[in-house]
C-alpha cells in the first residue's frame, strides 16, 4: 500500500486555528503542496498578515515573518531584496490587502516585485467578528453594514485581481475558487504556476482565492459554499487576468 495523499511536508504538525469548514486551510495546503513539488521549501520565506491567518507563520514549515496589518507586500519586498535567491510569498485576507494595505499591494505589484501574493477573499472581516470588508457584496449584511452594504454610500466591492491587472508589471494574476473539490484541483494548478514563476524569478504573481466564512456569515460550512457560488462568483468572476508566460517569450 502506498500513500497517495497526506499532509505536505511544508506544513508543520500544528492544527490550524481556523473555524470548522473555513477554507483558509485548503489554501494553505495548496501552497504547501506546491512548495513540496517545486522543491523550494528550503529556500522559501513567507509573510503572515493580520487577520484570521495571522498565525500562518506557525503553519508553514519555512521561515516566516509576521507583518503589521496590510504591510505584508512591503515586508516581503524587504525580504526579497535582502535575499534575492529565495522565494518570498505573502498570505493576506481581504481587509489586510484591499483596505488598510491597498497602497502596499498596488505598489509591490507595480514594481513587479518578485513575490507571490496569496489573497483570500471571503467578503468579510473574520478575526474581528464579521464586519464589512472592502470585498463585502452590495446588499450583504455584516455587523457594520447591518442594513446591507449600500453601494451608493460606501462604494462597490473592490475587485483586487482586476485592479492589479491594470498595471503593466505583474506577471501572473488569476482568481480561483475553493468552493468544491473540482475547483480546488483547478486552483492547485494556478498556485503551482504562481510559485513556479516565482522560483523562475519571472515577476509579480497573484492568486485570489474565493473562499467562505461560515462562522461570520452564519451559514454552516457546506451551505456557505453554495452561498458563495450563488453570490460571490457573480461579482468576482473566476479566471486568469494576466499570464505573461503566454504572451512574453521565455518569461520576463
Amino acid at each position, binding site marked *: 500500500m502506498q500513500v497517495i*495523499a497526506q499532509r505536505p511536508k511544508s506544513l508543520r504538525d500544528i*492544527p490550524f486555528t481556523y473555524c470548522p469548514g473555513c477554507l483558509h486551510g485548503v489554501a494553505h495546503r495548496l501552497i504547501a503542496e506546491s512548495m513540496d513539488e517545486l522543491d523550494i521549501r528550503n529556500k522559501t520565506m513567507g509573510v503572515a498578515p493580520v487577520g484570521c491567518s495571522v498565525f500562518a507563520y506557525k503553519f508553514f514549515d519555512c521561515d516566516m515573518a509576521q507583518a503589521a496589518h496590510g504591510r505584508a507586500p512591503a515586508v516581503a519586498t524587504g525580504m526579497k531584496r535582502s535575499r534575492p535567491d529565495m522565494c518570498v510569498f505573502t498570505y493576506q485576507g481581504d481587509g489586510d490587502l484591499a483596505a488598510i494595505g491597498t497602497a502596499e499591494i498596488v505598489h509591490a505589484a507595480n514594481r513587479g516585485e518578485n513575490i507571490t501574493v496569496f489573497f483570500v477573499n471571503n467578503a468579510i472581516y473574520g478575526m474581528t467578528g464579521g464586519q464589512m470588508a472592502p470585498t463585502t457584496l452590495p446588499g450583504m449584511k455584516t455587523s457594520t453594514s447591518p442594513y446591507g452594504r449600500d453601494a451608493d454610500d460606501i462604494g462597490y466591492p473592490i475587485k483586487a485581481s482586476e485592479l492589479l491587472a491594470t498595471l503593466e508589471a505583474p506577471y501572473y494574476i488569476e482568481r480561483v475558487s475553493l468552493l468544491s473539490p473540482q475547483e480546488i*484541483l483547478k486552483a492547485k494548478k494556478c498556485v503551482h504556476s504562481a510559485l513556479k514563476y516565482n522560483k523562475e524569478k519571472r515577476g509579480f504573481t497573484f492568486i485570489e482565492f474565493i473562499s467562505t466564512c461560515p462562522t461570520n456569515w452564519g451559514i454552516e460550512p457546506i451551505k456557505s459554499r453554495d452561498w458563495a457560488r450563488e453570490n460571490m462568483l457573480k461579482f468576482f468572476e473566476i479566471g486568469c487576468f494576466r499570464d505573461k508566460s503566454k504572451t512574453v517569450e521565455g518569461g520576463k
Partner: protein
Amino acid sequence: MPKMTVDPYYCKGCGLCIKACPKKIIRFSEEINAKGYHYAECFDQDSCIACKLCYVTCPDVAITVEK
C-alpha cells in the same frame, strides 16, 4: 486496497469530506476528539476508491489516502 484515514488530532468535524465522498462512506464519529468535535471517520474502507476528493476538500489537512 484503497483506504482513507482521518487524523482526529486535526479534524474539526466540518463535514466537507462527507459531502465530497462519491461513495458516501464517511460519517461523523460517535466519539469526540480533544477539541470536542465529532470527527469524520470512514465506516466502510472496502468501498473506498482512493479518489482523494475527501483529502482535496478537507480544510484541516487531516486526511491521508492510501492505495
